[in-house]
């Protein structure tokens, strides 16, 4: 057998798009690829991340304004702090399946960093936030470079140990305030009264949450997100399609850790103080429950879950005393029945209905675009089925 026959070549020639013409297409049409590709149009601009960021900020801002600095508002703001952390955990644990239990430690880095910089070095809240982000980036890069080389089980075990000794270090350190922690952390944005300060700081917190959610959604829905999907399923597979495992593991670890630190800063500002509890194993356990119960792949779930669980923890005494048992039972139920959590169950139940809603929403917005003469008005799906 020698060179391919000329006739074969004829059908092989294809447009710039790619690819060999296949068996079915070869017989069917010489136009092969171009016509076929036109039938599946891909939306160039993905509005979801930005819409989520804006939506969260606006809705959250309105809700906090309505609560007007009440205790409920404070609880919600604390919940927002946890939500920033859990948003990062959705990317790290849920989507990329990197089982690291170091988020409470980085939450502590953010909280303590904020506390130390503001009370001992006179930073204002904007400066301390930026500094904490930088600090968390550097620390997580250093730790991550070593830690992400270890295979999954080793990473999980080692990071389980991390809160143990970091917590002890913090409680023994007088510079960090030992058991009482650090007092006098500044709110993000001061106002004329206690209530307005809470509301304003809450709005900043919600803004940060919106940014975090937008960031995570953008990553999950991008090409990098597709790579993460592939490598989290099967690392050999990821390698074979050109994904750099080492790079992605490190990036996911750093991103999750930095978001945890931002969450810690929000917590510290909201409460005005930092205590070692933020670094403890039980904090990590709470975070895990906030992620797994609502659905570890769902950003919306992680946000709602964090706020709801935080509310339950501080509310009626029956629930908060027995929170451990309740959480344990719910966790087991989730694991057995719906590993994708409440969000997964909701998605399954609503299923078709949400697809239809989404489709009609898309065609409505496409029609609006066309009306305004906008470019890029394309119908059709892009095949993506990420949960938001």
């Amino acid at each position, binding site marked *: 057998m020698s060179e391919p026959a000329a006739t074969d070549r004829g059908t092989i020639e294809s447009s710039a798009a790619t690819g060999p013409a296949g068996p079915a297409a070869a017989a069917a049409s010489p136009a092969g690829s171009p016509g076929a590709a036109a039938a599946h149009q891909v939306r160039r601009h993905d509005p979801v991340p930005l819409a989520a960021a804006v939506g969260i900020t606006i809705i959250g801002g309105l809700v906090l304004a309505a609560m007007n600095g009440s205790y409920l508002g404070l609880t919600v703001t604390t919940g927002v702090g946890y939500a920033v952390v859990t948003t990062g955990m959705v990317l790290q644990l849920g989507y990329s399946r990197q089982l690291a239990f170091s988020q409470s430690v980085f939450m502590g880095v953010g909280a303590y960093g904020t506390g130390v910089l503001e009370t001992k070095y006179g930073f204002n809240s904007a400066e301390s936030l930026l500094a904490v982000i930088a600090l968390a980036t550097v620390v997580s890069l250093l730790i991550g470079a070593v830690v992400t080389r270890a*295979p999954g089980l080793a990473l999980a075990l080692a990071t389980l140990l991390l809160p143990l000794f970091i917590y002890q270090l913090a409680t023994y350190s007088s510079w960090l305030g030992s058991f009482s922690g650090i007092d006098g952390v500044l709110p993000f944005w001061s106002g004329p009264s206690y209530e307005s300060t809470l509301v304003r700081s809450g709005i900043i917190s919600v803004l940060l949450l919106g940014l975090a959610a937008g960031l995570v959604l953008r990553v999950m829905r991008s090409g990098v997100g597709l790579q993460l999907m592939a490598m989290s399923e099967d690392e050999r597979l990821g390698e074979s399609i050109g994904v750099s*495992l080492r790079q992605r593991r490190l990036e996911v670890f750093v991103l999750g850790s930095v978001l945890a630190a931002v969450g810690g800063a929000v917590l510290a500002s909201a409460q005005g103080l930092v205590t070692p509890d933020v670094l403890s194993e039980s904090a990590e356990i709470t975070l895990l429950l906030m992620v797994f119960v609502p659905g570890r792949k769902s950003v919306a779930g992680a946000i709602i879950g964090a706020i709801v669980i935080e509310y339950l923890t501080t509310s009626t005494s029956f629930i908060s005393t027995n929170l451990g*048992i309740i959480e344990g039972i719910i966790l087991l139920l989730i694991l057995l029945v719906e590993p994708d959590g409440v969000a997964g169950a909701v998605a399954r139940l609503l299923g078709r209905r949400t697809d239809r809603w989404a489709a009609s929403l898309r065609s409505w917005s496409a029609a609006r675009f066309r009306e305004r003469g906008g470019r890029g008005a394309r119908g059709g799906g892009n095949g993506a089925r990420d949960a938001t």
Partner: protein
Amino acid sequence: MSEFLNLLAAGLTSGGIYGIFGACLAVWFRVCNVLNLAVGDFAMLGAIGTARLVQTDHLPFLAGIVVDLAAVGLIAWLFDRLVLHFAFDRGAGAHGIVGVFFYTFGLSLILEGAARAVFGTDVYGAPAIWSGPALAIADFHVQRAGVLVIALAIVSGLVLWAYLRFTVSGRAASACGESVLGSRIVGIDSALFRRRIFIVTAVLAALFGIVESPITGFTYLSGPTVSLIGVVAAGFAAFRRPGRAVVAGLVIGVAEAMLGGYVSTTYNDVLLYAALFGIIILRPEVLGLGAEPA
């Protein structure tokens, strides 16, 4: 010298606990590839339950132990039937590395919460099985309970090792962990082994709690930290070898005591955990795991 020996004795005693938890974890992981993160809580139930039965409800000591161990066995059996059965025999639910940790983690939360509700937040210590003052050999002082702990740890480790190595039943149990499908094909009931070993290791942990608690009191929260070190000890035994896990646990215990005696009493745990963290990360081969593909 005597200080060294006393530290050694204290270290071996706490190390005995780590070791036996490690052995329980290693044996069960070997059979079904799940980590029992609730092993410390079973010990806690053993200690506190017996203390309550004997001291508050005034049961005779032996009866109290028996009732308590039976209750622990029952709890373990229930957990297997209600949760693990559905997870692993019916194929429902989350698997992979999440399954390795989170099922027993949920159990741990429930046990702690229940213990808090029933027993409150007090510190409990079961009465000593072998009571009397500390034994003195020359300048070497060791608690009698400590001797029991170490002896039991070594004996249990040996028995588990021998079971896995030399008995047909033990080898069948190992086969379950290595290949679920394969073992089923040759007629090994992996669900049965999983349940039995779970119950046995739970009861064993409870027994150790009873023996240990005269030395260190137990609260409802005592479980997790010890479980974690047990996991580490099992890790150093590649999650498969109970004998090696006992040795690893003893070494960790002694290291902890030595660090406390010679380096720093406040920071000894910090140093220990940091060292363990370092070893796991930098030398994951110790856990029987290879380095990841780059």
